[in-house]
């Protein structure tokens, strides 16, 4: 009976059969989880973050477990946009679900160029613009921290593409609403948040930072309350659709984010713990809507 439940959502023209996506950097290019379930059951897939040139990433260690969380310092390791198009896209483009490319850059020009290159791909559903990755010295952090620089990046991407633009916001800011307003006026069609929270760990034996780059990005259930609060705030500031993420592990978490104002949600770190998490969340959502005798659209932002 719950199989008839309508879970479809439309985010800036991205038509999804359900609102459950997988977050960038937690799902590679879609190959790793194919063994566990049919990934065509997802709402959408967001690729590992792409840069113009290949990136080797940071030296180990790259991950460190924390209470209910994980710190990561991967450093945007990726094959670069050209290799992505040559090697990964042929397989990805055959998926029946929307595929969203996540992009990063060191300069505004980088963002423009990579957006331009990806725009040539038929079937690519959207670009998610990472203005917030805290891992690379010259990377996104600076752009995402100030409304002006955030806006500059989105404007450049807007110029380069007709694809829907999702601006992925950093939580490491003092006024998330101002950043959200800035990226929307610059042309973002949707907002996703949050990226990882900047944190660190210290090795008490070596008496130095665990990570080469000292700071790393915190994700997992530990960040959920922060993410939820920021989705709530952004929902009150802008009218574009929001993709909520940050520590979503269960369908109950997903419902909270939707009630806070998210039109869709993304599962990130939970994929590592429970590969079936996105599927279980989709099923849980259906049952919840059925039992509550409501529909997804009435749920969005209903807690306000």
């Amino acid at each position: 009976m719950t199989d008839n439940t309508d879970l479809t959502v439309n985010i800036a023209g991205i038509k999804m059969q359900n609102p459950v996506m997988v977050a960038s950097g937690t799902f590679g290019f879609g190959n790793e989880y194919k063994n566990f379930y049919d990934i065509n059951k997802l709402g959408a897939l967001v690729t590992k973050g792409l840069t113009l040139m290949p990136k080797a990433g940071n030296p180990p260690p790259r991950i460190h477990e924390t209470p209910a969380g994980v710190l990561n310092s991967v450093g945007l390791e990726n094959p670069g946009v050209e290799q992505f198009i040559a090697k990964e896209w042929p397989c990805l483009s055959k998926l029946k679900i929307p595929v969203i490319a996540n992009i990063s850059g060191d300069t505004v020009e980088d963002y423009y160029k990579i957006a331009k290159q990806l725009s040539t791909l038929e079937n690519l559903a959207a670009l998610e613009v990472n203005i917030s990755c805290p891992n690379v010295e010259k990377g996104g952090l600076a752009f995402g921290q100030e409304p002006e620089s955030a806006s500059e990046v989105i404007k450049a991407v807007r110029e380069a593409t007709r694809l829907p633009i999702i601006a992925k916001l950093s939580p490491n800011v003092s006024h998330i609403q101002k950043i959200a307003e800035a990226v929307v006026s610059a042309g973002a069609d949707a907002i996703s948040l949050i990226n990882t929270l900047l944190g660190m760990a210290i090795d008490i034996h070596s008496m130095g930072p665990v990570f080469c780059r000292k700071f790393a990005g915190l994700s997992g259930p530990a960040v959920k309350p922060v993410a939820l609060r920021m989705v709530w705030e952004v929902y009150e500031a802008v009218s574009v659709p929001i993709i909520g993420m940050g520590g979503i592990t269960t369908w109950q978490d997903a419902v909270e984010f939707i009630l806070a104002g998210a039109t869709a949600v993304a599962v990130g770190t939970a994929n590592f713990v429970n590969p079936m998490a996105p599927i279980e969340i989709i099923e849980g959502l259906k049952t919840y809507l059925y039992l509550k005798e409501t529909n997804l659209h009435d749920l969005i932002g209903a807690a306000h």
Partner: protein
Amino acid sequence: MSTPAALFANITQNTQIAPDIYLMEIEAEIAEAAQPGQFLHIRCSDTFAPLLRRPISISDADKKTGKVEIIYRVIGQGTHLLCQKRPGDRLDIIGPLGRGFPMPEEGKTSIIIGGGIGVAPLLYLAKQIAKDHKNGHLPLTFLGFATKQEAFGIDFLSSLGIKATICTDDGTLGYKGFPTTLFKEHLSQYQDKSNLIIYACGPKPLLSSIKDIAAGEHITAYLSLEERMACGVGACLGCSVKSSQAGYKKVCKDGPVFEAGEIELE
């Protein structure tokens, strides 16, 4: 490579075999696919404490009985919870994962070198090589432990007809010293070393030493590495090891077994 599965397996045994070292046996369909050197990614807790799975190498698998064994050392929160599980409990696993040890080509002489808990995956490897037996002889095995109490796997190897050379850091069992030292001495017996193939797993210094010897003597060596992991399937890019070419390899997917020349150990 075999296709990994995410499943709940029935625990049939979980016993202490040495101080802080446990042997767990589970019933799982993956027994059929499990190759020596591969690992299981185990969720030790139902809660978020700890959040991540723990990668544990497979120490034996039997297609006929459908049983898989792991041997693990209790180190932190995850393995502490693991050792408290009882027969009849269910174990949340993903596996078998990773690239295991390639079997020796016909006519090769296999040499197995292990240290501490690193001995675990080598037991299954030794069994498979012994079973094959087309090589004409059993693998030569050098194992090192901190002390007699912590030694394990020796009876298992004996049952296969393998008489392992044992050493301990304190000399309480076998020779006093490291297995790498004994192996080096043993190596001098060979005029032609091109026929040898080395398999090693253990602490970093052991692996580095084997890597150096293998490079110096032009012997093919396979090393099984350990690294902290998140996903275990190659998605998170967390468990990186420096490639000898450029960039990084992933211990979970490109390894955990690497040809010694493929990677840099710092």
